[in-house]
């Protein structure tokens, strides 16, 4: 019997569960390798060659090269592992979060200073309105959420 996943319809959210973890194992392990300074240097010197040392799918490698964090998450990435990639780029959690919402970092910072993204529209199944002028936080990346 399939597991109940009541979290699968939360808008704009991919829960890193056992299925996602299995899918993203090598992607996440690659990201974690960047905690070592010498690996960061080798990655920066030739990203493609470094990625080719890992048993990742081509889609996962392309998502890393493009720094498409929503895509990486859809392909099994977890944000705490992926954080090693943007840390290697000298970027913050706030930078990465803004990128994933489709907002400019400036607009994102303003949204946070004014209290953050409203929790209204949490129920799923309906199209939530955005409260801050950024990209709609609805299921617009649902097609990328390969576990549905």
């Amino acid at each position, binding site marked *: 019997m399939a597991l109940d996943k009541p979290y699968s319809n939360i808008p704009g959210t991919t829960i890193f569960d056992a299925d996602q973890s299995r899918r993203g194992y090598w992607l996440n392990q690659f990201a974690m390798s960047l905690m070592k300074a010498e690996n960061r240097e080798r990655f920066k010197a030739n990203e493609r060659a470094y990625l080719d040392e890992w048993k990742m799918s081509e889609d996962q490698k392309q998502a890393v090269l493009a720094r498409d964090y929503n895509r990486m998450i859809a392909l099994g990435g977890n944000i705490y592992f992926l954080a090693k990639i943007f840390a290697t780029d000298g970027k913050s959690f706030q930078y990465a979060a803004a990128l994933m919402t489709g907002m400019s970092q400036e607009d994102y910072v303003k949204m946070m200073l004014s209290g953050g*993204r409203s929790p209204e529209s949490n129920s799923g199944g309906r199209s939530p309105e955005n409260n801050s002028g950024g990209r709609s936080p609805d299921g617009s990346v649902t097609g990328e959420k390969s576990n549905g």
Partner: protein
Amino acid sequence: MARITAGVATSHVPAIGAALDLGKTQEAYWAPLFKGYEFSKQWMAANTPDVVFLVYNDHATAFSLDFIPTFAIGCAEEFQPADEGWGPRPVPVVKGHPELAAHIAQSVIQSDFDLTIVNRMDVDHGLTVPLSLMFGQPQEWPCKVIPFAVNVVQYPPPSGMRCYQLGKAIRRAIDSFDAGLNVQIWGTGGMSHQLQGPRAGLINKEFDNRFLDRIVNEPDELAKVPHIDYVREAGSEGIELVMWLIMRGALDAKVRQVHRFYHVPASNTAVGHLILENS
């Protein structure tokens, strides 16, 4: 006999550590946050324990996807601040309490909570940011620390009720330790936040403040809240709040709230903080 005198709950946002380490605490963005911890540092100076039992989560630092322990107790002599990708935080080495940690491990496992025992582990911002918030920037941490890591990275984390009951088992274990130690238990992480996907930036002040009310006054009921409510209402990373229930379970049924603070934002996150004393 050892006894638990107080509990501390606080968020452990990495940007707070960076603000401290880079000397930004007086900047307009950060000053209101650090102001909320001024009382806490004074209280802590007057109430420094011998040992802090520090409940936190590892953020893909000590534990990769190779090993994912649900509950892991640090039994080592010391724990190094981790390099999370931009070099280790410039904070003191964390000194453990191997005797008490081993006693708790044995006692709690025999109370049906199957802990993973860790004898070598670096500790990340989840553990060091709360220490910095409560102790400032000393040359050495003024007490021993037992790190207790909870998996909240890969779903599902332990349930709120499991955490709450575990806290009670930890309380019994500490109460039965022979040496006369003053022990505090800290629960860290939260409050509402989401770091991933198009819904990143979610904050739910109403949820957070209700949580702050209930963890003090009706923890038995709060412990029944299912995961899905945290994830939906407090964001995918807001589920870290189950860790506060371990702290609460280890305290008396009735506690005295000596400090409460709430602030939005710290980077992507709502910051909550409580100091609770046993009677």
